[in-house]
């Protein structure tokens, strides 16, 4: 039952873990009328307790990573994580810089990786759709 709720109306929480804002503005653009995310039922959650999907951008700055871990724990199950952009996937051009952990999946379990620097809004919506399809299949 919980799973089908997510399938039809996933609420996203966006977390910037040390990003250049490139992915953030494309994510923001993905939420505007031109790309129309609401046809997927996607909207921004006002706080972590209402979120179904956490979208992480940025190369996981150590301080931000602590916050992300706490936010992840505050989000109720079922919950999913999307690593959006090259930085969240591998650290991007900043890999292994001294203040970074570099990979989102070292901090929280990641379900979908959306590559790009930054990924286009269409790519972000496609990544969300892939996650929803997987959830619908029971994965």
């Amino acid at each position, binding site marked *: 039952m919980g799973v089908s709720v997510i399938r039809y109306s996933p609420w996203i929480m966006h977390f910037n873990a040390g990003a250049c804002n490139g992915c953030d503005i494309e994510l923001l653009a993905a939420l505007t009328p031109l790309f129309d995310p609401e046809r997927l039922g996607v909207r921004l959650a006002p706080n972590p307790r209402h979120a179904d999907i956490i979208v992480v951008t940025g190369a996981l*700055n*150590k301080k931000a990573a602590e916050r992300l871990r706490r936010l992840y724990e505050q989000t109720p199950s079922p919950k999913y994580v999307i690593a959006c952009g090259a930085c969240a996937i591998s650290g991007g051009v900043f890999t292994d810089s*001294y*203040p970074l952990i570099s990979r989102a999946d070292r901090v929280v379990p990641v379900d979908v990786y959306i590559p790009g620097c930054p990924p286009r809004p269409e790519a972000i919506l496609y990544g969300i759709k892939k996650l929803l399809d997987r959830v619908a299949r029971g994965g």
Partner: protein
Amino acid sequence: MAELSIGGYSFREVGPRRYVASVDPGRLREIVELIVGEESYLSTISAVDLPKENAIELNYVFWSIRHRAALVVKTRVSREKPVVPTIVDIVPGALGGELEAHDLFGVIFEGNTRLRRGFLVPEDLVSKGIYPMRKDAGV
């Protein structure tokens, strides 16, 4: 002009709209007071680690609206005892630059009560006493 004079200090031209003066740390506050007495603002404080000369060079870059030029005040401190007087009471906007140079290079701006480690640098490096921008920081 090849030279610009402010108070008793002489700035030499190093490029179009770029002037440089070198002073001892003891003279820093005096020259800063003179510069901001005219219409200008502190643009940045740039620290450069020079281990071969056992020094850290501080570049106080001002943009002078009056002279339509960048005025760079260079001063040097030793790496072992990198102490320089604060200018944050003369130029409140120097706060960010002093906090940054302290956290990344270990420069001590005497009189600035808000200096602290961890302004930018993550806790794991701070606890090891590492100043990441020094050439021998090992990060």
